[in-house]
């Protein structure tokens, strides 16, 4: 087992991921970063910037084309089993068996991660009641709203009680009440359960509120790393949104309504 440097539970060294028959698409480009134990780390970036690819590499789902990475001390290239047992993942577009009830789905996920049979039922009940799904635990998920499905998927990421949890767009489909609950959950898992949280989201306020440190990537490259304040100051911006737009290149506001007058921007 390779030991990560300085208490870092996630460490990447110039990981790169290329796609395409001739490796012509560079999804992630020499990304180097560290996430410390117990930290809540935010990954920001526009659509297609490589956030999901980064998360997939760090969960042992796809292999980096070059570079190295360690998760909880396990090499993502050579020790994928250790990586997978160390992490829980809420994927952005998760595959889900909608013909199952949430209780059955969590039982399935628990089995995939070899959660002991004497522990699993109690843990499932606790997770379902935490997410206020206890009274609907036997309904098939096909009838659930997006928010309810998202809650089940978050519960599934927690069912084997991993030390590191990856949440890819955790509140994108949730109503304000559920979003608040997820925010509180992220904080509690980090502060009280000492979990390391790796959160990717488009919602800047969520990242700013819950994350200790933030990385911003654009076109696969790291363009900023630090606390929200450090990033704002480095970009000479008023707030995180302004900094994000400056660092990733936004649309000029005058362009937004130009189509109505017929004037080319």
């Amino acid at each position, binding site marked *: 087992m390779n030991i990560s440097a300085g208490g870092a539970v996630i460490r990447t060294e110039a990981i790169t991921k290329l796609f395409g028959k001739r490796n012509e698409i560079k999804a992630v480009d020499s990304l180097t970063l560290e996430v410390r134990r117990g930290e809540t780390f935010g990954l920001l970036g526009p659509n297609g910037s490589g956030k999901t690819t980064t998360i997939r590499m760090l969960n042992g789902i796809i292999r980096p084309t070059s570079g190295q990475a360690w998760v909880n001390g396990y090499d993502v290239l050579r020790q994928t089993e250790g990586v997978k047992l160390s992490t829980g993942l809420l994927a952005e577009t998760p595959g889900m068996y909608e013909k199952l009830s949430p209780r059955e789905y969590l039982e399935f996920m628990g089995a*995939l991660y070899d959660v002991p049979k004497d522990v699993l039922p109690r843990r499932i009940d606790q997770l379902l009641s935490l997410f206020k799904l206890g009274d609907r635990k036997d309904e098939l998920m*096909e009838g659930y709203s997006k928010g309810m499905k998202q809650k089940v998927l978050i519960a599934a990421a927690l069912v084997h009680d991993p030390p590191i949890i990856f949440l890819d767009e955790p509140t994108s489909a949730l109503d304000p009440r559920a979003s608040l609950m997820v925010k509180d959950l992220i904080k509690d898992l980090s502060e009280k359960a000492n979990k390391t949280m790796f959160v990717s989201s488009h919602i800047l306020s969520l990242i700013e509120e819950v994350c200790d440190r933030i990385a911003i990537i654009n076109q696969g490259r790291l363009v900023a790393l630090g606390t929200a304040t450090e990033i704002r100051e480095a970009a000479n911006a008023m707030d995180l949104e302004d900094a994000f737009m400056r660092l990733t290149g936004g649309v000029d506001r005058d362009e937004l309504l130009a189509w109505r007058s017929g004037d080319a921007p």
Partner: protein
Amino acid sequence: MLPKWAVIAKYEYMVKTSGFRRWRYILPTVAAFAIILYIFILAPAVFALFEQYTSQFILSDQALGFMQVFLLVIFASIITIPIMQTLQDNRVSPLEAVIASPVRPIDVLVGRFLGSLPFYCLVVVLIAGTFLALFIPFGMSPAQVALSVLVFLLVVVSGLWIGILLAAVLKARLGRTPRGRDMGQALALMIALPLVAVMYGIMNGGLFDAVGEGGSTLPTVLWLLPSSWGADVVLIFLRNPGDLSRYWQVTVLGLGTLMVFFFGSLYVGSRLSGRAYDLEPVSFTSPLAGPEGRIYRSVRAITADGPFSVVVLTVLKDYVRRMENLSRVIYILGLVVLMEIFLLESLPPGNYISIALLTISWMMAFLCVFVVGEVTTRGKDNLFVYRKAPKGETRLVWARVVQGWLVVLPVAGISALVVLVPSDTSWQEVGAYTLALVAISAAYVLMSIGLFLLSPAFSDRPSETIGNAIAVLVISFLLYVICLVLFGDPMGIWILVIASWLLGLGLLAAGGRKIRRVE
């Protein structure tokens, strides 16, 4: 500005012609010209060679029965196809988009109907023209041919309108709840079984005899359908070539009733169109997952009641709770029974076993495609759920194998008994052949999973699904024929068991390797 129904029809046509967009506007003209040339010149020249047979046929009692069945099949197919296509697509969002836009339901129905019409007309005119061209050498006048084609077209437009209307009503009814959408997809397949029965009846020849017999009740039933009214008109032309005047009253009556039926169905459809696009929820009750019954408990016990058994049960529950999947199993069993009734029963005793087993083994290969072909159709995201877990892909592959066996093997056993028990074979042989067919089907499950992993189909209707399905069917057919030709019966059957297992295991291993590398 174009009326709304015309806009919808235009875009329906554009969607359907997107594969050959350069020629979409000249296609109707070119097609009409080609068809006229074919019906009046090319086909009659070829069919003049078969004059003797056709003249005997027209004078026979079977002619009326044939015409009735011929038009019935066209009428029923034209109704069925839009219903099947609509129900297979279980998305409600297109309906929501329609409701949200300022169009009336009748505009949508008429637009869809007109947009689809050219293709159905083209196919049916080609079929009708080929049939009619057989009789042009006997002196059928161009007017009689044109009126006969008109009869076919009236049958088609009526059928298509009814099909599109029923499809819309069913879609709106069933699309409101998850259970309803499930039922819709199940119905989409089951609806084809009666048509298959008619087709097998035609292939066997017994249906024509039944329709031709005066005392049979079948003709009375058929006379209620517009296809039979049209058949009567066409048959008068065939029996009186070149003479349009002798039975003009019957001709006018036949064409008139067909037109009244069509315009009547248009009127009724316009009155029902409001219901066709009603998405008001009818129920808010969600389907519940019941406690595990005896079958699930047995599966749990067979698979050692550990984490792997949970994975097997998960894929099995997900499979069984989709009515579409169960309908496929029933569909295959229905096909086996229909084949036994209409086709296999009349085989000579010497060839019965080998042909019956070939047919059933081929049907099982077909079922395997249905059952395990969806191994990757939920997309990469579903695959990644397994990949995220330690040894997840291995568990997925073996869980799919067990699930495939649990569904396919009982059907294989029942199907073998359906065709073997009526034969004059001893009970020992029936048992041995049934066992062999079950073993072959088990190997086909491995082979199908292997192929679908080697060339994964990550969406519902990709080309890979069709390619894999063809590969499974071709391999199973060739394996059977090669083994039987080289080793004869029964040794060839047992060699087939070994060969299909070896091939199945090889493909499964290759597929397993491939799926671990997919990104």
